[in-house]
């Protein structure tokens, strides 16, 4: 069954759409609205909308072929090391970034088997996009 994602922001040309997985919105939204995290999220959102590169903020997870469409938003200020995993979907010139799952307190640069498996599962999610 397809999962649902709804729109939270887009760029002025309506080519980049930032969306959220409705099943995990309850967990992700309070996190990104926290003091300090909200400022980092505001920056990431703008980077995405302007199509700017910055691997310290947003990068491909590159764990395997199964998860080739999975990227991570990185929250690292104030000794945080948190991630929001996202799926990127392209339709022609339109780019949809679906925030799927929050992962708090990543300990090392390496990805554990458990997280790798989770990321690969996310890579297989299919979305019904409401935008």
């Amino acid at each position, binding site marked *: 069954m397809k999962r649902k994602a709804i729109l939270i922001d887009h760029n002025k040309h309506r080519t980049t759409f930032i969306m959220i997985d*409705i099943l995990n919105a309850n967990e992700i939204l309070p996190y990104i609205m926290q003091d300090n995290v909200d400022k980092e999220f505001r920056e990431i959102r703008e980077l995405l909308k302007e199509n700017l590169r910055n691997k310290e903020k947003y990068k491909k997870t590159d764990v395997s072929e199964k998860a080739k469409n999975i990227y991570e938003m990185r929250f690292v200020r104030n000794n945080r090391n948190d991630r929001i995993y996202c799926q990127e979907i392209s339709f022609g010139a339109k780019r949809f970034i679906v925030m799927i799952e929050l992962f708090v307190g990543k300990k090392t640069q390496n990805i554990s088997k458990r997280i790798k498996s989770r990321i690969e599962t996310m890579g297989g999610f299919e979305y019904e996009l409401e935008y």
Partner: protein
Amino acid sequence: MNSNINERIKKDFEKSLAFIDTKEDLEYDARMIMYRFLSEIERIADKKGLNRKELAALIGTSPSYLTQLFRGNKLINMETIAKFQSVFNITFDIKAISNNVEKVSNDQNINKLNDTQNNIGLTA
């Protein structure tokens, strides 16, 4: 349940668009200006296959300093931008665009977005 979530998403989204304060806005703008320069640097570095360490060595700085810039913990200075221009033999092309045109467009988009949200999940 969905309509409750959608209502909260709408509320939080509006909150995230809210004006913070002048000082925070200026700091945010300063970082965004820096990120536009850094994005171009990253594109060139990727194209040339340079990692962070090699990029830092090219301009005579440390990889951790570059990480601090990309994370927005520090602001870049003009001399560092000049060094990047020199080592890559490039010139950053700067132009000013009126924000008034932008403002109208953003307002229209926010209205459109609200309409869209009203028409989709928010009424579900």
